[in-house]
């Protein structure tokens, strides 16, 4: 059993939390794909029915907000890991 000094342990914890923050941001893939899909569907809907543009954009934004929440969670966790 090797005795590690507190500085080494501190350094290992810091580097591990920075790596974990980078890994947490992988979650950004999901919301990106989902929001892009919603925007593409909304574009084709506007092309089919240009007069319903306002309500389509409102519905698209609400759906994108809900699907974008997971990305925000990962961002908050990454900020927490880096800055504490």
């Amino acid at each position, binding site marked *: 059993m090797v005795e590690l000094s507190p500085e080494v342990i501190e350094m290992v914890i810091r580097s591990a939390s920075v790596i974990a923050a980078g890994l947490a941001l992988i979650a950004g893939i999901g919301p990106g794909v989902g929001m892009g899909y919603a925007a593409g569907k909304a574009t084709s809907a506007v092309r089919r029915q240009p007069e319903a543009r306002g309500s389509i954009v409102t519905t698209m*934004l609400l759906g994108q907000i809900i699907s974008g929440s997971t990305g925000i969670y990962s961002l908050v966790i990454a*900020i927490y890991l880096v800055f504490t």
Partner: protein
Amino acid sequence: MNPGPQVVTYLFGKSYLPVTDTLIVGWISVVLIIILARYLTKDLKIRPEGKQNIAEMLITAIHDQIEPMLPGEGWKFLPLIATLFIYVGFSNLIGLIPGSTSPTGDLNTTLGLALVVFLISHYAGMKEKGVWGYIKSFGEPVIFLLPLNIVSEFAKPISHSFRLFGNIVGGGIIITLIYQAAPGLIPVPLHAWFDLFIGLIQALIFGMVAISYISVAKS
């Protein structure tokens, strides 16, 4: 580097009620909004002209967002939603001024606003369906879903507040990093993107999500 809110002073004594910089900027923006509102609505006329047009355009645009989701109650919920929208939008825009931190970049501010919306949506639901009818609606369609419904109800204010907080803080951190790497003209378009565009979109979204939570609780 610590991006969180910094404690500037204490309101009572040396350790009670800490006052952070985000709180002070929040107070300043509240005062500015009151002055602006008094100025825009000073002498109202039947035939609007000049500054009254701006105020009427803003209020009508917010009312048009509320009316389709809460039919017949647009004017009743207008004060709440318009206050949320204008305060959040103004707080995001005030981050443009160098040296000031957006009040919405502090979880305390956004969680407070989200809890207000949370309480009002439950109150509106109870008023619509009665207290027992509203509580019973959590056990529908099957009683097994009761714990899931309660958990998803508590996830609402958390995701509502973390969305605004995460967007503003993320933008602020990216701008700070760019300032350290390349000061000068390079951060200017980033300010336009993160403070103007994302700030206004997030204010609109904060108001729209508040409307949709209230309309979900009522239906």
